[in-house]
């Protein structure tokens, strides 16, 4: 068995893994990036539409173009080793950690390292997760899989499609399908409001006259071998109104019903996971419950925008470097918890004496909302939010000054609420 040693190993060469690797290697540490696909870039490779990098590069890029920027950076560094078509499959943690990575070319490689960055991305929720009744024919795809089949492999999965879920991936696929000649009969959304960006509603549905059925759900899938149709049922006050159901004759169903951080591997080697996010619990430096194991990107929590992924991953990498240099002290971190109307806040801890950046998701839909951060019950900082809804991530920062205020209590527990 081939054995190797690096300061840090990054699991996954998507936007999170790349940004982390560039930053860690840039500080002089040695890094290995393990990527199971045959190219770097992760999910971005199939996102051939534009809209990426507006925050980061002040340019409107496609997914692959955005990824390319980071791939170029990583390829310029000689202390980064890239292992393509290599899957991290087993980890035994300790000092050092041992990672077993499987590949056709090298066999199983044993890599010893002091730090691990989890950057494995997420997977899509599927039919089983949401339990749509009916038959089990061919023709039911998750939207991301359909996106991959069309954009990378050049395969069209059907001719008349219905899309369940109005998140951005679903909306973008509605347009993409139309462009390749598939008739899109409608986008069905169980909530009373679309979960994707307004810009995508306009550009991906309205411009093509694709109906959006808000407060509707799929109540049955029909067809023995291949999908032949679906029944769509409206909801009123959260209850289905069966009498008002109608049928759509389609041969394809795309499910865009949410993403789940892919933490099977992390769970297997003892990383404790947050049931709200599906990602690891992390401290202010994005370190998980296992010392030396960090997480960033979609494996930590699902991000709407890649720009945030890059930013978060670079921040994570700085802490990895601190850890490698022996200056990381998790004992100084204090907890931050979700208060009223907040689904989750990430990270789960903060560190006084620096600028802390947080991401959170709201449980409620509201215009003119207020974000309140309080310390031991005392409001510490307030922020106005024009609009909140569960599908849109909210971010905020607390700097040294914000955190220097407040009580002297030992726990120093922060709480974030939305009103």
């Amino acid at each position, binding site marked *: *068995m081939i054995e190797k040693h690096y300061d840090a190993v990054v699991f996954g060469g998507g936007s999170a893994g790349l940004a982390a690797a560039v930053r860690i290697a840039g500080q002089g540490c040695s890094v290995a990036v393990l990527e*199971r696909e045959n190219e770097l870039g992760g999910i971005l490779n199939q996102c*051939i*539409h*534009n809209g990426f990098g507006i925050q980061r590069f002040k340019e409107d890029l496609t997914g692959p173009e955005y990824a390319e920027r980071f791939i170029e950076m990583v390829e310029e560094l000689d202390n980064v080793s890239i292992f393509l*078509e290599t*899957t991290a499959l*087993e980890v035994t943690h300790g000092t050092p950690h041992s990672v*077993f990575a*499987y*590949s*056709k*070319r090298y*066999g*199983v490689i044993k890599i010893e390292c002091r730090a691990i960055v989890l950057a494995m991305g997420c*997977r*899509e929720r*599927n*039919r*089983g*997760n949401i*339990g749509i*009744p*009916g*038959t*089990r*024919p*061919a023709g039911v795809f*998750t939207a*991301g*899989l359909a996106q*991959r*089949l*069309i*954009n*990378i*492999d*050049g*395969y*069209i*999965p*059907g*001719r008349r499609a219905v899309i369940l879920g109005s998140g951005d991936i679903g909306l973008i696929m509605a347009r*993409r399908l*139309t*462009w*390749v*000649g*598939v*008739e899109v009969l409608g986008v069905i959304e169980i909530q009373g409001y679309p979960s994707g960006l307004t810009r995508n509603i306009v550009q991906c549905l309205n411009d*093509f006259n694709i109906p959006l059925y808000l407060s509707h759900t799929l*109540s*049955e899938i029909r067809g*023995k*071998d*291949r999908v032949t149709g679906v029944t769509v049922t409206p909801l009123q006050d959260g209850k289905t109104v069966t009498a008002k159901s109608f049928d759509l004759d389609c*041969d394809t169903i795309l499910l865009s019903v949410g993403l789940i951080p*892919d933490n*099977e591997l992390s*769970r297997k080697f003892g990383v404790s996971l947050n049931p709200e996010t599906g990602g690891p619990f992390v401290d202010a430096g994005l370190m998980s419950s296992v010392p030396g194991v960090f997480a960033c990107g979609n494996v930590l929590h699902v991000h709407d925008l890649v720009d945030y992924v890059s930013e978060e991953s670079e921040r994570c990498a700085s802490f990895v470097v601190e850890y490698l240099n022996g200056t990381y002290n998790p004992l100084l971190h204090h907890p931050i918890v979700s208060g009223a109307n907040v689904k989750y806040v990430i990270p789960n801890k903060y560190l006084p004496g620096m600028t802390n950046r947080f991401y959170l998701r709201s449980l409620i839909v509201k215009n003119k909302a207020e974000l309140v951060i309080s310390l031991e019950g005392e409001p510490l900082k307030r922020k106005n939010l024009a609009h909140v809804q569960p599908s849109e991530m909210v971010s905020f920062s607390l700097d040294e000054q914000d955190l220097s205020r407040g009580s002297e209590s030992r726990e120093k527990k922060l709480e974030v609420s939305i009103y």
Partner: protein
Amino acid sequence: MKNNIYDVAVVGAGVVGASIARKLSAYACDTVILEKEWDVSFGVTKTNSGIIHGGFHYPTSTLKGRLEVLGNIMFDRLQQELHFPFRRCGILAAAFTIEEMKTIEKMYMQGVENKVIGLELCNRDRIHSLEPKLNPDVVGGLHAPSGGVIEPYHFVFSLIESAKKNGVELRTRFKVVKAEKRKGHFLIQAENGESLRARYLVNAAGLYADEVSAIFNAEHLQIKPLKGQEFLLDRNAAGLPGKVIFPVPSIVSKGILVIPTPEGTCMVGPTAIEQKDKEDLSTSQSNFATVFHSARRLIPKISERDIITSFAGLRPTLKGNDFYIAISEKQPELIQVAGIQSPGLTAAPAIGEYVKDLLKKAGLVLTERPDYDPFVDEIPRIRKLSPYEADALVQKEPAYGEIICRCESVSEAEIVSAIRQGHTTMDGIKFYTRAQMGRCQGGFCSYKILKILQRETGMSIEEITKRGLGSNLITDRVGGLAVKDPAAAPTGTEEVK
């Protein structure tokens, strides 16, 4: 083969047909097994609870009761020969009241009478120590350590592989639609125009045993489907028990069970709903609440949040609810194997023996083959190997190093061996390898499997199906469909890479 006439044609490649064919493969006898689907085990056998029952439910006055007990004890040897996932994890039937304990005692007596080994009655402490996840309200129950769980389709794949190795011919996509009695043999015709001849016939057509019986002018049978829906939960489900957990049964069914599958996931079900349509495998939402309510009564930690998928199967039932396995009174060269509902899986190996004896009785001369080899090669599974064992394997065969399905850790080499064993549909590959069976349900690996299938079989992408005729996955290539308003489609970045 004498005059191009098979000695025996078995109609149906479910667990029953496969067990019979494999049994016959030990004898000098030209056997063909005919299956209408594109792969074996695509009928009732693919959708069941996978339990090897403990022999305490039915009296030995029933054929199914006798064959269940006999079948159960044959599985250890079969596993040694055929390497399918099987575990004698034990079965517990849990009682909540003194009344229910009385039924439990009856079941115990039944089992003892059936000569089941190791049965025990449990008091509260004993049953909770055997299964700590049980509801604390359980007051006692029955423990059948010889009960177990199996991967049914895998069992069939192995049986067929073994049968083929010993000379049995398998014809898939061969739907028997017509038959004529000729001199000393049947002429059997398939829907696709093919035909063949055989001297003896075994009707193991599951739900369609009545139709096949009619095709051969034999008994008038009426198979009624009884639907059972099952829910599959993630392997990390907190409710995953160590043993199969039964409630105290009612008259209609064994009730909702909680089952630890041999591959480490958890199954909850099955329901029991009569229906007419033999093709309707649709799942419904209406029984969902009751199923989980019943399951949670046994194991409180069972949660619908852990559902990976749900599916339904149809039990082929006959009036009287027993198996009907006999030489046809109308066609003395036809063996009827009908009404094989639960415990058909458990009984299958014993049915194989039983049918062999009936064939002898019907006049078929069976002599043992000196070169019979009961063993098939075990295919290495990456997920079962340590990294060191895996490395040694990859050095010999690199394709074991390419992980295709990450949820179930299935390598490219395993997919290729499935295809080479004749499993050329997406579902066939799924059942053979477990790729697409985990929590992402194929989201990550199906495009890779599509590629491997094309490469290995030479099929075009449009020809690949989920499970046979009409279940194609890809309809067109990008650029191949007329676009309504071509002006709207952008060029440049939207082009396929």
